[in-house]
């Protein structure tokens, strides 16, 4: 004999499972495959040098190329959901074709003097 409560349990389980899946997706999104944290803009603004040597993931929209320097080019990007402005050195070795308004997920490293250097980048 079929239980009368089974449909109710199923009805409640569906949204709970959906929410859990969504949270998991967000979590895994932040903790990307490389296992790096998102670029901490506030901390960088307060003290760029203090992040020296760290690596982060920076999801950003390319804005404008600021300068060509030795070994690459300096690009202004708007990072995160807030669109904070950052200057990223994109080495020529990455062979990236960067255009304005394109969104990239970049693995960046904070170098000497607070310089943000892209190590890899993937359009998304």
């Amino acid at each position, binding site marked *: 004999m079929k239980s009368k409560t089974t449909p109710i349990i199923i009805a409640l389980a569906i949204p709970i499972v959906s929410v859990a899946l969504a949270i998991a997706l967000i979590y895994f999104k932040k903790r990307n495959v490389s296992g790096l944290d998102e670029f901490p803009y506030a901390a960088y603004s307060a003290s760029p040098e203090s992040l020296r040597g760290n690596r982060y993931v920076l999801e950003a929209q390319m804005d404008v190329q600021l300068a060509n*320097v030795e070994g690459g080019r300096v690009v202004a990007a708007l990072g995160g959901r807030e669109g904070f402005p950052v200057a990223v050195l994109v080495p020529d070795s990455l062979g990236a074709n960067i255009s304005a308004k394109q969104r990239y997920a970049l693995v960046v490293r904070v170098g*000497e003097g607070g310089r943000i250097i892209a190590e890899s980048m993937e359009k998304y």
Partner: protein
Amino acid sequence: MNFFKAALPFFALSAASAQMMVSGIPGAPSPAPAAPAQPAAPQPAAGGAPARPPSAGIFESATAERFADRIFDVNSDSVDTDGNLRWKGKTFSVGDSRIVRARFERYLSMPAGDGDFEKYGAILAEIEAQLAANNDAISPESIRYAWSRLFDAAEYPIDGDSSLVIANLVYLSWRMRDEYETFKTAEADKERDVKTAKSYAKERAEFMEYAADKLKRNSPSRSRNSQSAPTFGTADLGYRLQELQRQVAELAAAKALKESAAAKAVLQFQSQILAFVLERKFQQAQIAAMFYRHIYRGNAQELKVGREQVKDLVQVSNFTPTSDALEMIAIDARKDVSDGMAAVETLYDKGDRYAALERLLETFLLGEHDVKLAVFPSEKREVLRKIYKRATTAKELADAKDWGGVEEVVGEISALAPDFPAREILSKVKTAERASDMALIAAKQAAAIGAADDVKKNMERAALLWPLNPGIQSFNDELLGLTKGISTYVKKFDENLERGNLRDIMDEAPEYGIAFKNDPERAKKLREIVVKISQIDSLIAQAAEFERQKSPYFAWDILENASRIDSSDPVLARAVARLAPEVSDYVKALNRAKAAEEKKAFASALNYYLAAQKIFPASQACRMGIERVAPKY
């Protein structure tokens, strides 16, 4: 002429102002050391009218004339250049402008008439009623009663014996009528005498013819054929003929005497009516014309005298001068005067006292001798007199270009007459004062760079526009002091320069300029300081304007530029400190960028510049910073 224009051209003052407003302050100093002000080239006036000389016309303008007209020439075309008042196509001589002005002032100063004027007016009204045109069947007794009332009217000083003049004319007419009757009787007697003399002469001549015929018939044929004529009775006939001639001559003389007596009275009467009209004594003219109409009938109504004057008075080609026409002019004028005074009263009671003065002036020209003007209340006249006198004073002050005095007097007039166009005058005064001040500033600027000639020219200009400008005196005192202590200024300049007190140097730049006239090295330094501080001041002023327009980031950007000229300037520092709280986020990012750039941490600097640019995208400082540090990333 416009006697009011001549009387109170007060607002020649507006001239300066007017021209300035039109041409944008002629010769006004530029921020840079002023070049000598060049007078504007004369502009040909429209319609080929001669242009005003630019320099001479500095205090004259169409605006000023319009203004003067409006105030003191209530009807600019009502009084021509010969002092003739034109009213409804009639022309009256009101006399020399100065005299008319004096009469108007005297009228305003005189106490108003008490009850006497009203009694006087009542008597004249009674006489008019007695002699009204619709009362054509008026009895001799009524005319005599009206005539007797003229003597009552003559008792009042306001009458000026005009009623006596009319009474005398009436009496003269009556006496003439009696004489006329006497002359008519004498003429009848003479006609009778002539007839008698003619009869006697005829009788004698017939007797002589009869006697001669009889003598011929009774005489012999020889004697009958002779050519000799009888002489009996010839002397008597001659005497009778002479008598006849004498009687005819006497008759002609009597007729002439009768006619001349009549003509003399008519001419005198008509002359006096005309005189009353020309003197603008319209009520007297009207009463005299009424008497005339009742005393003389028919053909005597046509004017026999003063046709030329009447034609001048009434410049209408088909006008037939009659005593009735003069009476109508008088009635019309009296109505105008009455309406004018009603308007004066209404305007005054409404508080429009300046307009009331205008209307009174207008009415005075026509109805100077009218009772309605005489009974205008003295307290109101006193107020209007004060307005009139103050306006005269203002005019004199304006002639002397004492703008401060003009402002004061205009304020007094406004207190008395709220409708007085004070704002218009004061704006012109302010413009003149400002132009003078600007010339003075130009003189100081010229002094700052040691341009003595420009100092002189601009000082002259300032004095021309406003001789009593207090700034001129203080500047003169400063210049005088300079000549006494050049060495003091040299020392002070060096000390201030060493301490970086550029503002202190700037404050006394004109004095330093004069002092360093023969010291090119210090003069060069002074010039650099003046230019630098002027630039900073200009940028601070621009920033303040942006701040007022609620654009604090733009204002800050401009102050940034000023800081690049001299960041130690205390005035600039105050402006920066005042604005900083409003743009703290931007300033914070920018300061971090600058600090990082100074430490050669170009990557951090670039990121800070980008952060600051996000707050204020139009930032010039950010754009330039990014351009600087990006290649060094």
